[in-house]
């Protein structure tokens, strides 16, 4: 501390930060409270804050009439598959690039790093053509396969594994472990923090992914939650505000809970992958 200051810092900064916090969080509070209101109350002017007659009607309708249960399952299946693929395949290559010597290593590394910056919009059209010709339009594999590996994942895992002591390999070899055994039994168990960061970021990205599922998921059986919500909010249900609020809650709240549980990993992950 440079200057003698009260134990709590300056009171007005707390005041400003608290007002800012209320403003930032208010839309979420509004969304949750709104999901328990009826259509009449939501359209009232001036608007009410607390629901007058809280009811679960919106949620009942969402799952009974609009089949949000299916969309929820699709979202979970896609996000879990994409996350598992990234954790496994990216750590495998990340390890090979960090610790092993093999022909073609430099070329592979250059291509992986070179594609880190290419925006998704560039690959979008041909990707659709490829997936369409493979007959994967409107299937869950069509939603999963293009995202199963990312150059970012390899980059992150390689960075982390490069920081582990290379003596681990020799120690494993002396103990008679196979080359693949060294990866599975020695390296992978040490990668916890990096795997947590990659897993969380991947799950988050997949859960919120919108553009690709919007074109690939063409019927209700493959809709993910954001697609269903977007289509209902711009389609014929666009004036059913209670339903839309409840739908938004179903999209946001599971992730919010995951986030609150793992927030330390989230935030440290962002900070450490962002800067060194």
């Amino acid at each position, binding site marked *: 501390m440079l200057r003698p200051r009260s134990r709590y810092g300056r009171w007005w*900064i*707390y005041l*400003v*930060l608290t007002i*800012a916090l209320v403003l*930032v*969080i208010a*839309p*979420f509070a509004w*969304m949750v409270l709104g999901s328990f209101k009826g259509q009449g109350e939501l359209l009232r*002017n*001036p*608007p009410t804050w607390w629901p007058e007659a809280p009811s679960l009607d919106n949620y009942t309708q969402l799952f009974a009439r609009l089949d949000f249960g299916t969309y929820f399952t699709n979202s979970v299946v896609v996000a879990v598959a994409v996350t598992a693929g990234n954790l*496994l*395949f*990216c750590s*495998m*290559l990340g390890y*090979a690039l*960090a*610790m*092993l010597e*093999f022909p073609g290593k430099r070329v*592979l590394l250059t*291509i992986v*790093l070179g594609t880190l910056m*290419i*925006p*998704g*919009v*560039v690959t*979008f*059209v*041909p990707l659709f*053509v*490829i997936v369409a010709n493979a007959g994967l339009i409107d299937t869950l594999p069509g939603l999963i396969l*293009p995202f199963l*590996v*990312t*150059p*970012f994942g390899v*980059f992150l895992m390689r*960075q982390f594994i490069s920081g582990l002591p*290379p003596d681990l390999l020799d120690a494993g070899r002396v103990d008679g472990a*196979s*080359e693949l055994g060294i990866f599975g039994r020695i390296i992978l168990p040490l990668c916890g923090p990096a795997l947590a960061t990659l897993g969380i970021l991947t799950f*988050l990205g997949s859960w919120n992914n*919108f553009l690709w599922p919007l074109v690939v998921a063409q019927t209700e059986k493959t809709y993910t939650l954001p697609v269903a*919500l977007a289509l209902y*909010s711009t389609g014929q249900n666009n004036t059913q505000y209670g339903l839309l*609020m409840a*739908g938004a809650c179903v*999209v*946001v709240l599971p992730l*919010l809970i995951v*986030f609150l549980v793992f927030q330390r990993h989230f*935030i440290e992950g962002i*900070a450490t992958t*962002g*800067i060194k």
Partner: protein
Amino acid sequence: MSAPTLAATVQLPPAASSPKLPRKRGSHPGEGRAAWILAIPFTLLFLAFTVWPVIQSLFMSFTDTKQKDLRTPFAVNFTGLQNYGRALSDPVFVKAAANTAYFVVVGVPLTLGVALLAAVALDKGITRFRAVYRLGFYTPVITSIVAVAVVWRFLLQPDSGLVNTVLSWVGIAGPNWLGDVQWSMPSLILMATWRNFGTGMIIFLAGLQAVPASLHEAAAIDGASGWQRFWHITFPLLRPTLLFVSVTTAIGYLQFFEEPFVMTQGGPLNSTISLSMYTYNQFGYGNYGLAAAMSYLIFIVIAVVTALQFRLLRENT
């Protein structure tokens, strides 16, 4: 998804230097084979779903590929730069480019400013409840943009929306935020700032905490004011972080799509249509070649803007 991807690029220098392994090359017989077994799944998926589409997209952009050519992507006519010319002379594309520029030029500094302000306040201004504020400010980042857009569209309603109701308490007659040509883009920029400043804040916080306290103490002894210390010590040391956050934010904003798609459908009167959204529309109409050309134009803009930011923020350090 673009934010973490870009996170990596700025880190490239440390990544490019591979660790010095104290072992002789090729001294282990199974090593090369094991490495390739580990590399194969990634490499195959990566070639099929990233490398190949990048190449094919470039090829498509020089052809008249339409939806009907889906099954025979190579039996198409080569049209040279025609798609690029068509995009650049399309008034809606030009409008979309202007809207995107507006969004980026106002949105990026605003987002960075709010993020930096929040980070400095959390780092220097307070000593308690830091984690609570950090968590609260970061929450909008993790939420689905579609869900957020649905909620905001409702909050911004002209008559019964919460925003205008609150404004009316202090005597301000709020505009028809999303329905007015003047206010539609500012509304989207405000929403994007609300949603994205948390990422910048977290990264700035980490950067601020890396500034050695001894430097500040020495400057304070020499009589430097708080503002002088920030400007002459913290700011220069924060430059790499600033570069990183501005590059990733700009790349994300240059591709903005979901906000207008869900909130305004590009309206009113195309006042919020973005480059990505117009490209998506062309794809929807089946004009694949044209859409590919537009996507490469976006790519070129992103590359130029990124290079420019590197020049601006790397020099004079």
